[in-house]
């Protein structure tokens, strides 16, 4: 089932009546979620990603715009008629019911022609439980389960009525680091097995990048970029997206373009064409540096962190927006810790220019 969001907008009236300022949580969001894909809605808190999810679920009504499931306009349809499964951030498992009762609960609500026999319900519940590998825990209470297990129960409960669309709100935020890795693979597996169009919300870019077919990066209610994770990473449309994706984060420096050369301080680091002379913001991915004795970029060396396969070189440069510049290079390269400066050349495809005012990407060609 593809999901189409058309000019979706949500405006919350201001809480403080005197200030009278309304909050635009989601602004003119248009996107077609392809059938059977896993989509990550990504952004810092308050970017409107959860609001978008709740509008798809029907728990919140859009101020304007439309939502389609396939060809059906569901904008006015209430939640229960949309046929969605929703996994809440805190799972919202009913604490007084066993795992089985929790999973059965949605089925017991079906009525009319959808009504199932007792045996059918049991069968479906066990299938869902098997899918998320909790069929051993059916008689337990949620309080007797670990966070990861609760998460699986919540997913089973969402899947048991065979939803057209599965929605997950920050599915991993309540798990510890190890479980998070494991669970995100699990979500990927379940999504692949069921083939249900799935949308999940997260503020963790690594999480979104690692399992999504597509990611949607949002900021203050406005969609910044939509695309496959690697494409978005390699080709950010603006400084925000570039900064938001990637660990360690991108290095941001101030510089200028003059006569077809990009300058950081006095160093002409790259020759480009197609860019007018102007002050720019420069983004260099940590892996975009290359140690080069004759390299154009001079930085003051402060530290080298060994990470096994790679080393991370920490240096400073007066043009840097952040105090430190971090580069990641292959550990085969030897760095002389005694020297005061480190010289780099840069890889053009990891080197981005942004307009200083609008922070939009400035595209260039390498000479």
């Amino acid at each position, binding site marked *: 089932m593809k999901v189409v969001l058309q000019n979706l907008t949500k405006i919350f009236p201001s809480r403080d009546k005197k200030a009278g300022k309304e909050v635009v949580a989601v602004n003119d969001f248009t996107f077609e979620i392809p059938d059977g894909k896993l989509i990550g809605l990504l952004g810092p808190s308050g970017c409107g990603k959860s609001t978008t999810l709740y509008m798809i*679920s*029907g*728990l919140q009504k859009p101020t304007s715009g439309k939502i389609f499931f396939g060809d059906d306009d569901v904008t006015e349809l209430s*939640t*229960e*008629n949309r046929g*969605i*499964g*929703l996994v*809440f*951030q*805190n799972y*919202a498992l*009913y*604490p*007084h*019911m066993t795992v089985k009762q929790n999973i059965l*609960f*949605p089925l*017991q*609500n*079906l*009525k009319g022609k959808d009504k199932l026999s007792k045996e059918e319900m049991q069968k479906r519940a066990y299938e869902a439980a098997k899918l998320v590998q909790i069929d051993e825990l059916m008689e337990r*209470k*949620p*309080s007797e389960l670990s966070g990861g297990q609760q998460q699986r129960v919540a997913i089973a*409960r*969402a899947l048991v*009525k065979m939803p057209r669309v599965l929605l997950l709100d920050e599915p991993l935020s309540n798990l510890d680091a190890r479980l998070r890795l494991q669970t995100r693979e699990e979500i990927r597996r379940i999504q692949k097995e069921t083939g249900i169009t799935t949308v999940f919300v997260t503020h963790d870019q690594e999480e979104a990048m690692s399992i999504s077919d597509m990611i949607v990066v949002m900021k203050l209610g406005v969609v910044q970029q939509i695309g496959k994770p690697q494409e978005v990473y390699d080709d950010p449309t603006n400084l925000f997206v570039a900064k938001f994706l990637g660990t360690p984060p991108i290095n941001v420096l101030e510089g200028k373009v003059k006569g077809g050369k990009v300058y950081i301080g006095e160093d002409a680091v790259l020759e480009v064409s197609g860019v007018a002379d102007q002050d720019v913001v420069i983004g260099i991915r940590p892996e975009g540096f290359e140690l080069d004795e004759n390299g154009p970029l001079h930085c003051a060396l402060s530290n080298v962190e060994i990470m096994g396969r790679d080393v991370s070189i920490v240096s400073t440069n007066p043009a840097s927006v952040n105090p430190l510049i971090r580069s990641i290079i292959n550990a085969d390269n030897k760095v002389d810790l005694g020297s005061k400066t480190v010289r780099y050349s840069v890889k053009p495809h990891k080197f981005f220019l942004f307009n200083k005012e609008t922070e939009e990407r400035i595209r260039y060609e390498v000479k």
Partner: protein
Amino acid sequence: MVDNKQQWKAWLYLAPAIVLLLVFTVWPIFNTVRMAFLENYSGLKAAAGMQFEFGIGNFLKVVEYKRFIQCLKNTCILCVLTVPISTILALLIAVALNSIKFLQKGLQTIFFLPYVTNSIAIGMVFAAMFNIVGSFYGTENELIVTAGIINNVIEFFGGQHVNWINYGSTYEANMFVMVVYIVWNALPFKILVLLGGLQGINKQYYDAAKVDGTPRRRVFTHITVPLLSPMLAYVVITGFISGFKEYTSIVGIFGENMGPPDDAGRLNTMVGFIYDALETNSQGRASAAALILFAIILVVTLINNQVSKKRIHY
């Protein structure tokens, strides 16, 4: 030693409380038990130097006492009627209150009002409201006297006025008035606790239920009530305890007479029995009755705890 200093200081801070507790709480526990087990103990006779034998005569006398059985019966009837009625009403009101936004605060305040009242004073208002239309002090006195608004309303709708609380009124009518008054009095606390409980339930449970298309009734029986069960247990148990200690609300409506003018003591309760015994200087009997009351409250509490353990699963 710092430790020793702290010990010493702690006891100093606790001293006033401990002294008062020893005199007015600890000693009474022992002494009341002692008096209960001394045959026909009386404060006056004890002061005169009389000795009493050990025995369970006081308890036997209390139980055999016709008045006591009447008191026990009244207390139990009041409990059994008022606790469920007030709990269910309070639950409905709390759920309704929780589901609205407009006027919520104002209505909540109104529903709490009966709490901040003097149960004797407002009892007098209820007595006025339930007063009879017609004659009182028997049929021989034909003087038409003060009407009560309740009977006015009944007659307005074409009904026959009821002798609720006056001379010649029936036990059932008396009890009805008491139940109405006690429920009215008990609602605020229960609504307050249940509403607090409802507001403490995570909204996500309701969102989850909505996603699954759960009908309203099922949300109420399968989600709201179970999640509210600790609060429900709490209001039921406190309801029973205060029900077994009912006394002043009856004084409020019927006065010290504890019944209509022609049948004093008809509505007397356990607590009333204890005070009556105390006033006739039968401390032994009063103590025995107090211990019986304590035992009942203890048993009710234990039963409730057991039921709660079975029914409240988390």
